[in-house]
């Protein structure tokens, strides 16, 4: 098998942070290589180096034996390295028709004539569509097409450049199962044409469907290469998460009275109904890979979307929040993920960020009581060990970890019945992660705490119990014990849960 691309000894740092530590990778042509890795493992940095967005600090890349160091994305494109990014709309122009989209790169060439020759354009576009098995009306406007078709067009457009290496970054994240199947068919066509494909995904179902090889990354290094006629999927997940899950010395807490219940809940059309009860003084990690349904649980409980099916009960009473405000007034708080988009008010200081949801509790006839706000903020700053000059610092002057502490402090500052923390350790260094974790555990006595994390090691670090979700359905609940880790891991990576019947449900009720 011919080697399309060889990456050797790539090192890349951003400031003091070394993201890639001597990465070696071989990509044979006519092969689909799947790259797996947790958030922050360095996958996207590697991709960005291959497609010319970043420059490596050390190491080199060769493309069919020739040295390859693209100065820009268009440079990489010219050399035959084509990348389809996660956000599809970067790859298509919605207002133009399919034919123009397919031929847009041709149109942008300086040799293209001044006037459009529509017939010729369409004829060529039809040719491209035919080679790709695209069954589309090429005069249709792209904005009227579904996501899958757009994704296909983005890829087909890339194919007009005759790529040697095609990189796809989470291409199925917005596709349905059927649409994904079409994409896979297209990819195997391309593979037969001899293209080397690097496919980045978390989804086990994708990986099972198309992977010829699996390469896993962890902490900026390649942590495993799986090859051969039958791939070791579980081994790959283990390699992605770390060879050995280190179990912390967590003192499991005694659970209190029941607070919140999910009854006959279904998270998606394909999900199985399940019951769960959350108790006082209990920290439950809800874990699963991307698209496993964590968000569905959190947004239903916080009043953003109704539950797909089933009932929610708070203190035994039916609970159907109409809005976040409704949820907050009933004592269900949520600290959302992606803090810079969903949580941080960048024009505000620490104090005002901290008290934002509870301004009504700190005001008198709508007039704010500055002393109260200050007291709340200084208390949280000392409890969480937020590094700052004063509570009046702009929140954007803080480091990522300290900003996250402010966001956590926001929801710890008032009493809650159930606290939902969605990816509380996202973009946070290890010291801040410990501080946040211990503060969450210390303060958890009078509430149920749900922590939504994609990374299993974060779940193990903080929770009393671990709920595993998998592709929109419930897979199981476990006590956070060393002896359960193997079972949790296999459910997490998508092993059919039938073999684990005894573990499932043993903790329910």
């Amino acid at each position, binding site marked *: 098998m011919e080697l399309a691309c060889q990456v050797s000894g790539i090192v890349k740092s951003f400031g003091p942070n070394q993201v890639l530590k001597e990465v070696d990778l071989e990509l044979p042509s006519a092969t689909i290589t799947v790259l797996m890795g947790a958030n922050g493992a360095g996958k996207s940095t590697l991709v960005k180096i291959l497609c010319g967005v970043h420059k490596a600090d050390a190491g080199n890349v060769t493309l069919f034996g020739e040295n390859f160091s693209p100065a820009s994305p268009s440079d990489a494109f010219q050399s035959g390295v084509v990348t389809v990014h996660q956000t599809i709309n970067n790859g298509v122009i919605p207002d133009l028709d399919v034919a123009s989209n397919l031929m847009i790169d041709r149109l942008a060439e300086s040799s293209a004539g001044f006037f459009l020759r529509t017939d010729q354009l369409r004829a060529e576009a039809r040719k491209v569509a035919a080679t790709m098995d695209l069954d589309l009306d090429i005069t249709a406007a792209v904005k009227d097409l579904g996501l899958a078709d757009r994704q296909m067009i983005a890829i087909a457009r890339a194919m007009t450049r005759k790529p040697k290496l095609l990189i796809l970054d989470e291409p199925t994240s917005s596709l349905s199962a059927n649409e994904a199947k079409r994409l896979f068919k297209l990819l195997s066509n391309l593979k037969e044409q001899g293209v080397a494909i690097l496919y980045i995904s978390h989804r086990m179902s994708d990986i099972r469907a198309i992977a010829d090889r699996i390469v896993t990354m962890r902490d900026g290094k390649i942590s495993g290469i799986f090859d051969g006629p039958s791939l070791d999927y579980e081994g790959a997940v283990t390699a992605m998460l770390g060879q050995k899950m280190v179990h912390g010395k967590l003192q499991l807490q005694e659970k209190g009275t029941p607070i919140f219940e999910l009854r006959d809940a279904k998270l998606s059309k394909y999900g199985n109904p399940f019951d769960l009860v959350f108790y006082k003084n209990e920290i439950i990690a809800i874990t699963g890979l991307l698209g496993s349904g964590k968000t569905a649980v959190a947004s239903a409980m*916080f009043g953003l979307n109704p539950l797909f099916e089933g009932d929610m009960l708070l203190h035994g009473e039916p609970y159907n929040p109409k*809005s*976040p*405000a409704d*949820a*907050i*007034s009933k004592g269900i708080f*949520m600290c*959302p993920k992606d803090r810079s*988009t*969903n*949580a*941080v*008010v*960048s*024009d*505000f200081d620490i104090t*005002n960020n901290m008290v*934002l*949801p509870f*301004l*009504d509790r*700190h*005001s008198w006839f*709508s*007039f*704010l009581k500055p002393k109260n706000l200050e007291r709340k903020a200084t208390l949280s700053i000392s409890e969480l060990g937020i590094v700052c000059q004063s509570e009046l610092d*702009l929140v*954007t002057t803080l480091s990522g970890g300290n900003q996250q502490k402010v966001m956590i402090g*926001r929801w710890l500052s008032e009493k809650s019945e159930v606290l939902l923390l969605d990816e509380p350790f996202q973009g946070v260094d290890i010291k801040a992660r410990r501080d946040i974790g211990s503060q969450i555990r210390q303060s958890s006595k009078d509430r149920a705490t749900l922590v939504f994390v994609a990374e299993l090691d974060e779940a193990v670090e903080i929770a009393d119990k671990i709920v595993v979700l998998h592709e929109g359905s419930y897979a199981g609940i476990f006590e956070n014990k060393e002896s359960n880790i193997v079972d949790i891991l296999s459910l997490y990576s998508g092993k059919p849960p039938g073999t684990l019947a005894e573990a499932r449900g043993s903790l329910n009720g």
Partner: protein
Amino acid sequence: MNLRSFAIRYGFLLLLLGLVLFFSVVAEGFAGPRSAVFIFQSVSITGILALGVTATLVVDGFDLSIGSVATTALMLSAYVMVVLEMSAVTAIIACLIMGAFVGLVNGLLIVKARVPDLLATLGMMFLLIGLQRIPTEGRSISTGMKLPSGETAEGVYSQSFLWLGRHRLDFFLENLIPIPVIIFLLVGVFIWLFLELTRHGRLMYAIGSNETATALAGANVNKYKILAYVISGITASIGGILLSARLGRGDIASGNNLLLDSVAAALIGFAVLGAAKPNAFGTAIGALFVGVLLQGLTMMNAPYYTQDFVKGSVLVIALIFTFALSSKGRKTSH
């Protein structure tokens, strides 16, 4: 505090002080209570409109319809008193309701119909400019005018209505302070209190900075956005009422400059005290700044047609203060 942050913080206020001193020395009669009051009076109506537009800027919106709301209030008040022959109170209430209603429609267009703020309020501006001409077939309204029906308008502006625009209170000197100035100060204090000291104001600033985050903190974002446009509509109609009371007739050609002047005042306000954000105090100072400059130049016999040029230059300088010098301005460009 280094020189740069000092300049950002107090630069504009010092510039204002410098201007006042300069004109006091150069232009005879500039320094004195009468002249000061004249400046206040000249900026009171644009100032009131600017305070309303500030509220929409706070929620990261924009209201282009304020000028036309004000002129609609001008025409409406004249129509109610002169044509319908109703009382001053009725005229005022009708104007305030009209302003609030226009604000509500603006807000609903932006929040529910998802029309971008500039376009929604631009559309509303056109609509109102046209609408206010329809009842009188494009003519100004004054007592004794011929109505489309062929009758003659018999009503008159009531004295109590004119009092709002023309009366002057005694304050050390006889007949010193005009009522519009008092109303400007009252509206200013009200908007300032609302934006700075209440939780509603705080949430509106939060919405302006990060709407998603504020919604996830439990605030009713849509309600506050609509509220901002309602405030803007009401203040614009107050401005229109005062304009009507000063003119004493429904002059179809008045108020052309209101939109640009008040938007300029609100934007100049960004630079005051280095706020780099819309704020009521800054807006009032911004309006005053323009007033001082124009009054001084007029007293130095600068021709009237240079006025817009001067206002534009001040605005550009103020925007440089806000965005180029202050690091905060740079960060908020998301």
